[in-house]
């Protein structure tokens, strides 16, 4: 058992253990912190597979962006320290059964499938290669998805501002609720963009 194997098992334990704790923790803030460790474990897998650029993107976007956003929204919407209610036992039993069935079924499919490894010359996943392929318009280029994702990010940004903006005439009375409902309706133009 060499060091590579040991590191793999440690990363797997970190990712799966903190992932499991993230979906079962009773306090929502701890759940977010366990999600953070699970995402760090995934970034470790990318390092382990020697895709350093993807690992850096994973850390910057997920750990630095999405988890911080989630923690901010927890602070805004949740009373810190309150515990989430226990889900009913029936729902837990059926969710465990569904997840275990899916796990066993897909694992049987995967473990019996003979994967054909390619003998092609490995391509270096360096930043230079990724950058030149991302902006090339040849057959193997990714210029069109790149442009689509940039439009999607713009649409998502404008959509977020429109949805979350606080209207000036908002009141704590039922009139205020009507006001926010009209703001809610404006998110429909941004919705098909995120689905695609």
């Amino acid at each position: 058992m060499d060091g590579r194997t040991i590191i793999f098992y440690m990363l797997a334990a970190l990712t799966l253990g903190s992932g499991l704790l993230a979906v079962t923790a009773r306090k929502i803030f701890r759940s977010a912190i366990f999600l953070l460790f699970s995402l760090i474990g995934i970034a470790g897998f990318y390092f382990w597979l020697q895709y350093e650029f993807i690992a850096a993107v994973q850390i910057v976007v997920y750990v630095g962006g999405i988890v911080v956003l989630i923690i901010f929204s927890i602070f805004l919407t949740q009373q810190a320290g309150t515990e989430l209610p226990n889900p009913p036992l029936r729902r837990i039993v059926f969710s465990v059964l569904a997840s275990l069935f899916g796990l066993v079924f897909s694992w049987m499919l995967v473990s019996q499938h003979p994967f054909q490894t390619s003998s092609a010359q490995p391509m270096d996943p360096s930043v230079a290669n990724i950058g030149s392929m991302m902006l090339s318009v040849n057959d193997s280029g990714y210029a069109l998805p790149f442009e689509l994702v940039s439009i999607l990010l713009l649409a998502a940004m404008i959509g977020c501002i429109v949805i979350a903006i606080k209207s000036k005439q908002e009141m704590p009375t039922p009139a205020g609720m009507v006001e926010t409902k009209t703001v809610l309706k404006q998110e429909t133009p941004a919705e098909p963009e995120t689905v695609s």
Partner: protein
Amino acid sequence: MEQIGLQHILFVSISLFFIGVYGFLTRRNLITMLMSIELILNSVNLNFIAFNKYLWAGKLDGVFFTIFIIAIAASEAAVAIAIIINLYRSHKSIDVESASEMKY
């Protein structure tokens, strides 16, 4: 001890996917459901990278799929949190049961 191969990584990503599915089915809080979706998306990313590494090392297709999935996941999380905060403002709760009037 056998060499760590594609199957080991696939087992990790399948397990992470179904952990996310379990969280999505049991939780009724919108933020924790969003966290489960993030776990599911991450397992898919790990799958793409593992396939690219072991089966199609001559191309970078899996890397590009992963980059675009990360970008889309980031925008999805931002829009979802904007909706959640707006929902909290009008309902004072982010439980999915209390958000049923958005269905109609």
